[in-house]
């Protein structure tokens, strides 16, 4: 393994860590709003880091561009869905967690 | 066992689960889920048995499964329309025989 390989591996591992954090948040956070917060960490940062690591490994600008397009699409879907669900939850009076 | 073997056996399990669900579930939406799972099991067996050999995967079951997936979704859509129509007419999303009888004594 060479230098870029180590960097890519590091990015992939960091991405995996964010997926773990997202899942843990989904399991441990107390209400739907905080869980949304955890979910978007996996969408934005977790997938982002993995896409970055894989782009380094792919060795082709075309593939890297496609990977980034996929990431942007997931971001768009994740952000919109999070908004729609949070708004829906408020309209339906799902209570927020209070300590 | 090869990877394809795992999936073919999982397919058998899905066929059995689907048949079971189809037989014992009263709710028609659940029956539709069961049919879909049954179909997925059949697809897995088909592709698993033609699975990656030395000559590569067999494209014929792949083609059959692709048509199968599209037919399954259109059949599901039709099934859902039928279910809704039946529910509007009879007030229950179940077939007559599955529902508890509501005789005059009830």
């Amino acid at each position, binding site marked *: 393994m060479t230098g870029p390989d180590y960097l890519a591996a590091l990015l992939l591992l960091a991405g995996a860590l964010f997926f*773990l954090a997202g899942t843990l948040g989904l*399991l441990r956070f107390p209400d739907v709003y905080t869980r949304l917060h955890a979910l978007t960490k996996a*969408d934005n940062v977790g997938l982002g880091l*993995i896409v970055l690591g894989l782009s380094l490994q792919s060795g082709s600008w075309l593939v890297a561009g496609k990977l980034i397009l996929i990431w942007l699409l*997931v971001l*768009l*879907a994740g952000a919109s*869905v999070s908004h729609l669900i949070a708004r829906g939850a408020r309209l339906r*009076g*799902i209570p927020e967690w209070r300590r | 066992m090869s990877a394809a073997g795992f999936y073919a056996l999982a397919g058998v399990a899905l066929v059995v689960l689907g048949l079971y669900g189809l037989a014992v579930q009263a709710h028609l939406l659940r029956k539709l889920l069961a049919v879909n799972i049954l179909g997925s099991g059949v697809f897995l067996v088909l592709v698993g048995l033609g699975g990656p050999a030395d000559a590569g995967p067999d494209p014929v079951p792949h083609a059959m499964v692709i048509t199968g997936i599209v037919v399954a979704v259109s059949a599901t859509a039709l099934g859902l329309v039928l279910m809704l129509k039946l529910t509007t007419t009879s007030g229950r999303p179940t077939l007559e025989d599955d529902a508890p009888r509501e005789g005059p004594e009830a």
Partner: protein
Amino acid sequence: MPDLYHALTLFLLLNLGAGLWRVVRGPTAADRMLAAQLFGTTAVAILLVLAQAGGVAALRDVALVFALLAAVAAVAFVRRAWPQPEDEHDRP
């Protein structure tokens, strides 16, 4: 490197399995749908990693389709399957 990719795939799959607990537990329908949303993202990550591991470019197309349709089920949920609050559909 291939081992790293496969280990990563396995790890992401285990993540997905853990997320299933939220689908089963709920408590609200929104929680279950959220978990399904996370599964979609995880599947995209798995597909991209597997594409790199096996050198199969077509898997990136599968990931692309997943990314494109990630919102469909959730939008169907928000717009249809979630019981509407009373005033919502009376607006023009």
